[in-house]
């Protein structure tokens, strides 16, 4: 059963949020202009002040509700999604999967251009029916109380969702954890998946420690291996924590909106192509909207748990054919993204049809570089229509 859904956060929840923000006990911060110790205190205080005093949730809620939202339950797991019908002669169904710490709303800028290309200077033949679910345990796909829901399980759920919507075959797109969901669709459900487009490449067993050999990095990729190693060394403690004890972290982040903001903000700044100025890529409103979505849906704990589920229930191959991902694949990498794997490896792992590297943009592609993403998605799937 699929039910229409409208986002209507109660006034009491927003009032409580503001009251908590105003009552924040900020710890002292010092010697941290470069955010080396983590989220900078002065910036966080300013953002928290803005969130409590100036930010208008209702305006963003209205913008979200301009799209058609639905909720359904699949295998006892609540799933929220946007369905935006394409405007063109033969729209292609496209399921788009977000990542962490993202929400479905990180895809907001690409919905229009992908569903109605003609209205955005494109060709109506490139129209898609766009389906944007919230990952299980994220946003309005909550509460998640079932153990074991990892990205593989999510791919199974997506197939059921698309069937319920009447799409027997479909295209898939994603980044971050969404790229793993998407690649799993291309691996296990290659018959149903017309093609996949991802902007984070990696072996499906990556979180269990499987990484390509260093010798695979080729021309133009000389710095990538060092970049990956630096990320693992300096920036990945959050991931190890979330993969082992997400619940120990959840108490603070579900009770303190400033704590939640600090946790998300550090990643938004570090992982985006912002040169250290997070607002070059995300406005204060963008940041506050993401944080409000996590706050009002109380989903930080379950979203962090997605790492633990990936670790505890390691990816298992559905078949041993090569390439692992048989669906036609496009990889679009971004120079400032956190992990970049080599083309030579990707050519073996995926049925690789398209490979592009963008000189600008970081990890949060649909927010940072929606234009580049839209162009690449249109061009790739045009060949598969």
């Amino acid at each position: 059963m699929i039910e229409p859904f409208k986002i209507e956060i109660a006034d009491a929840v927003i009032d409580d949020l503001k009251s908590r923000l105003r009552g924040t006990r900020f710890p002292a911060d010092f010697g941290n202009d470069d955010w080396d110790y983590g989220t900078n205190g002065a910036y966080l205080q300013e953002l928290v002040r803005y969130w409590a005093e100036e930010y208008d949730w209702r305006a963003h809620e209205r913008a979200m509700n301009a799209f058609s939202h639905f909720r359904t339950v699949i295998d006892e797991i609540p799933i929220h999604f946007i369905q935006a019908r394409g405007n063109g002669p033969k729209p292609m169904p496209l399921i788009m999967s977000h990542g962490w710490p993202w929400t479905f709303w990180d895809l907001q800028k690409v919905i229009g251009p992908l569903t109605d290309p003609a209205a955005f200077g494109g060709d109506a033949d490139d129209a898609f029916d766009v389906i944007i679910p919230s990952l299980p345990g994220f946003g309005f796909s909550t509460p998640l109380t079932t153990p074991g829901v990892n990205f593989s399980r999510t791919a199974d759920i997506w197939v059921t969702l698309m069937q319920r919507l009447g799409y027997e075959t479909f295209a898939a797109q994603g980044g971050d954890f969404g790229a793993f969901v998407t690649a799993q669709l291309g691996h296990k459900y290659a018959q149903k998946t017309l093609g996949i487009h991802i902007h984070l490449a990696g072996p499906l067993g990556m979180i269990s420690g499987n990484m390509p050999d260093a010798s695979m990095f080729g021309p133009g990729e000389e710095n990538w291996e060092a970049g990956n190693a630096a990320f693992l060394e300096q920036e990945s403690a959050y991931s190890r924590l979330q993969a082992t004890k997400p619940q120990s972290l959840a108490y603070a982040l579900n009770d303190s909106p400033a704590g939640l903001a600090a946790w998300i903000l550090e990643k938004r700044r570090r992982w985006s192509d912002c040169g250290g100025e997070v607002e070059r890529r995300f406005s204060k409103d963008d940041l506050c909207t993401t944080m409000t979505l996590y706050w009002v849906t109380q989903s930080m704990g379950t979203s962090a748990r997605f790492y633990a589920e990936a670790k505890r229930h390691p990816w298992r191959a559905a078949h041993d054919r090569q390439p692992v991902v048989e669906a036609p694949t496009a990889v679009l990498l971004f120079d400032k993204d956190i992990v970049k794997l080599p083309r030579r490896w990707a050519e073996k792992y995926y049925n690789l049809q398209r490979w592009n590297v963008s000189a600008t943009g970081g990890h949060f592609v649909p927010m940072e570089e929606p234009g580049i993403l839209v162009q690449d998605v249109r061009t790739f799937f045009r060949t598969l229509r």
Partner: protein
Amino acid sequence: MENGLITPFTVHIEDSALHDLRRRLATTRWPDELTGAPWAYGADLATLRRMTDYWRDGYDWRAAEAGINRLAQFRTEIAGSGVHFIHERGVGPAPMPILISHGWPGSFVEMLELVPLLADPARFGGDAADAFDVVVPSMPGYGFSDRPTAPGMTPVAMAEIFAGLMASLGYARYGVQGGDWGATVSTWLAKFYPERLSGIHLNWIPGGLQPAVGGEAPVLSAAEGAFCARMAWQAAHGVSTHTGIHGSRPQTLGYGLNDSPVGLAAWLIDKFRMLADCGGDVESVIPLDWLLTNVSVYWFTETITSAIRLYKEAQAAPLKFCVGERILPPLGFAAFPGEVAVPPREWVARVYDVRRWTKMQRGGHFAAMEQPQILAEDIRAFFRPFREQPR
């Protein structure tokens, strides 16, 4: 406060802070939990709720405060940093001065039961000749010591401050004792001031200890090889994940923990349960009141962020030793069976002059809270040969 001026100190938390804590506890937004998976993903919801309900409705901070204040406390300023410390004079013919350093997630509160056992052994069935003058500082950034206001408060800097503290108390020669970060600070004190230390007693070998291996150093024993392999595996698999986040982006975590008392309690009590020798039932070895007093000290002093920043600061001062580089004062080590990682004796002997190595019968990482009596006995026995004869 002027440098060297020592003023008596009494813990007193304002009523307004108590009310604010109760209000925050009462308005906690609890996360949900997976069905049938207590502790599997971190601190267990039902346990946390019960503990923090008690924190709000049953626990008596004023009683805990009175208990703390039964021990003589002071504050002084050393090298620009305000230091809080317990200073209990020994009851005996010739008390020996001893400096006891705590670690994380503990605080000076860990030592409240140990201090009287060491200061006045006769009162607890021991020998007055074993009495110590006991000094228990709060580490800078912890408890009622000042929080640092600039980067660089490494364990080395702390060792310098503690050496200054002992000097300002007039102790030219003393013993040191410690576990967790306190073991690291104690080791640095022994390295820098061997002539001042009559001995060093540890109940934890610093996890960051890097003795010389290879080259002219002795060949690794089988036990050492296995220990190194286990440590490498744990590091690669992120077994103690809190050290990763504390050591890289502590400030990011600090905002939530300083703003949510339940978040703070979850973070700390999870570690107590993980590291104590308790078979999963932390309250069987450390009373809930003690756990909550420790959490309350972090909460009221707003020191969780400064405390966990130590893990990052410490990276600037690795405990790395060259061939032949030694810690000179004699070492006594109490090896508690529930401790997370006890290296082989020969590994420790590469650096320390190991004179005593006691296999303790029970107890884990929080020896002073879990097993104060047998820890006190081992400390007394170790230092007995190194006491100066009464004049």
